[in-house]
């Protein structure tokens, strides 16, 4: 019987397999940031261990970094200590680091692909659940906890029980104005926040094949929001085109050899998935969330749902709580919801195409009075490219704030946060209670919807302008 893409990549990394034990899986690339690593490095020190493969490990500062005044020390002493701890750890253990102010600095899931370090068929881990982003290249990439970070640092392997496989096939063509973000929000609403639990999702079908690499990264990024262990897309010409010429991509004869191998990384025709979901792209429209988990989403044309109409008692209670927290009334058209803040950025939507989409909508328009809009590039390289293309000028002229690179208001570990009760339209990945600041209320949207919302002050799509 044939194998799925996920099974092919998994099998190629099994170091040791024994009856009644988890497999030992080799890790090709370990990405490190300041938040989930300090206790892991401490563990190594206490046990007198080294980093086994510093050459397969790369670190960046992203979660805590302010997006203004890069040249000043971080004002928050606790954030500053965490960043300084990463610097010391990388120096002590010989790990390459892209610190604040470095032109290679950025969100960990933006810099891996940008450098060409993320390649098809690799295993990639990071102490961060959005590591699933890298699956867009046909890599097996997943988030781990700090104990596992220490394990990978010490051994370059992880004990794993092989996940099940799930196919999400999106047939047909996405209608105009419908983006990768709308697609993944619709998928999560369909299968639920636990729908992918224990599975690696492979996204397939014409609509997925038609996505750019950056669109594919947006889709794979939010696999974790559907509860999946990882998300993957088989590599193809779009992937190779994106990788070619990147600093760590193979070149010359090596390139041809690599492409030959990468081309073999596809699910065999006779392979069987443990679960399959089929979605018709033609039915999709711009999608937004109304609640406090990413599965609570609806088409923008819809209205805030009435919990009383939800049959499942757990989901009903969850919806009631969500409406109370979000300060929403059942039946309100989503287009009537007014926002205070618009956030563009994050590992979900902080890449150059996202910024182009935002600038495309903002060109010749103004951010509505009383609305604050932050645009935070995913990396310093993305920022530089955007500035070369003049996107920053368009964004600033609209009244939005053009910032430095980092995770920023996606999780509000730096000074960018919502005040209690404030409401945002955000291109990030989580609308959890307090995610963007204690008491803050988040609606997840695409970059295009974020920009249109900034212009009208209410949830809107570019077609509404």
């Amino acid at each position, binding site marked *: 019987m044939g194998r799925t893409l996920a099974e092919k990549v998994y099998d190629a990394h099994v*170091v040791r397999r024994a009856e009644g034990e988890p497999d030992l899986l080799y890790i090709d*690339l370990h990405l490190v940031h300041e938040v989930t690593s300090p206790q892991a490095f401490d563990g190594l020190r206490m046990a007198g*261990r080294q980093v086994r493969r510093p050459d397969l490990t790369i670190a960046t500062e992203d979660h805590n970094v302010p997006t203004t005044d890069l040249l000043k020390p971080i004002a928050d002493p606790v954030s500053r200590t965490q960043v300084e701890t990463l610097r010391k750890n990388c120096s002590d253990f010989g790990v390459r680091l892209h610190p604040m102010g470095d032109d290679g600095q950025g969100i960990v899931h933006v810099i891996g692909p940008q450098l060409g370090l993320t390649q098809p068929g690799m295993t990639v881990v990071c102490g961060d659940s959005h590591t699933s982003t890298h699956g867009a290249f046909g890599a097996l990439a997943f988030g*781990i906890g700090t*104990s596992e970070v220490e394990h990978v640092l*010490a051994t*370059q392997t992880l004990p794993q029980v092989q996940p099940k496989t799930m196919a999400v096939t999106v047939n047909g063509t996405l209608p105009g104005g419908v983006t990768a973000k709308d697609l993944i929000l619709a998928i999560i609403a369909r299968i639920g926040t636990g729908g992918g639990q224990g599975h690696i999702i492979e996204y397939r079908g014409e609509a997925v094949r038609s996505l750019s690499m950056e669109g594919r990264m947006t889709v794979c990024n939010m696999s974790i929001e559907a509860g999946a262990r990882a998300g993957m897309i088989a590599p193809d010409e779009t992937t190779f085109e994106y990788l070619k010429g990147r600093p760590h991509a193979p070149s010359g004869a090596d390139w041809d050899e690599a492409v030959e191998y990468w081309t073999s990384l596809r699910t065999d025709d006779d392979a069987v998935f443990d679960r399959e979901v089929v979605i018709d792209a033609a039915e999709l429209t711009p999608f937004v969330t109304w609640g406090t988990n990413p599965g609570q989403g609806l088409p923008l044309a819809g209205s805030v749902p009435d919990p009383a109409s939800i049959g499942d008692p757990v989901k009903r209670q969850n919806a009631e709580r969500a409406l109370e927290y979000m300060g929403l009334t059942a039946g309100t058209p989503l287009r009537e919801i007014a926002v205070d803040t618009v956030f563009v950025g994050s590992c979900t939507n902080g890449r150059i195409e996202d910024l182009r989409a935002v600038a495309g909508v903002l060109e010749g328009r103004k951010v509505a009075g009383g609305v604050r809009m932050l645009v935070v590039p995913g990396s310093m390289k993305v920022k530089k490219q955007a500035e070369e293309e003049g996107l920053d000028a368009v964004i600033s002229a609209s009244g939005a704030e053009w910032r430095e690179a980092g995770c920023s208001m996606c999780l509000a570990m730096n000074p960018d946060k919502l005040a209690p009760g404030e409401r945002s339209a955000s291109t990030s990945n989580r609308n*959890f209670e307090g995610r963007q600041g*204690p008491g803050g209320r988040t609606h997840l949207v695409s970059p295009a919807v974020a920009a249109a919302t900034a212009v009208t002050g209410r949830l809107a799509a570019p077609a509404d302008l």
Partner: protein
Amino acid sequence: MEAFTTYSGHAVPLRRSNVDTDQIIPAVWLKQVSRTGFDKGLFSAWREDPDFVLNRPQYDGAGILVAGPDFGTGSSREHAVWALQQYGFRVVIAPRFGDIFRNNSTKMGLLPVILTAEQVEALQSAVENDPALDITVDLEKREVRWGTEAASFEIDDYTRWRLLEGLDDIGLTLRHAEAINEFEKTRNPLLPTAA
């Protein structure tokens, strides 16, 4: 890791589903570089409400948290496990867990127990009726017992053995250092390095 064999004690019913790790420990607490002091951050936003279940004195000292489905979804932060443990929890019972949270728990010796939604509901009701209800979570027998009730749960043999013995994964893996060395010799030289 602390070994887990059997825990007997009281429980707290948390009647919420989709309790993500941002709720268990908000991001502001993640700036710490040590492994201690996270008990104060546990559910810190929800604990501001005096009626929140953890603030009710009848549940003081409980070591078992009984929650709704999809507990521990979202962020990979192991701090969520540290916070629960440092607050005093040894066991979390729920119908379904986020994969990464569940994995992190078993690395630290916090036992995640999956019971059916009906069993969880029954246990929550029993605890609400009698907060002093004695509950035993027996990993050896893979069983939760309270009053005259007993519910068995599944956990794979290997994870159970590791928890019963309190074994550290890195030490176990390093027993196979030779296999890792051999595997590395076979890796494609075209694979990238960050060096």
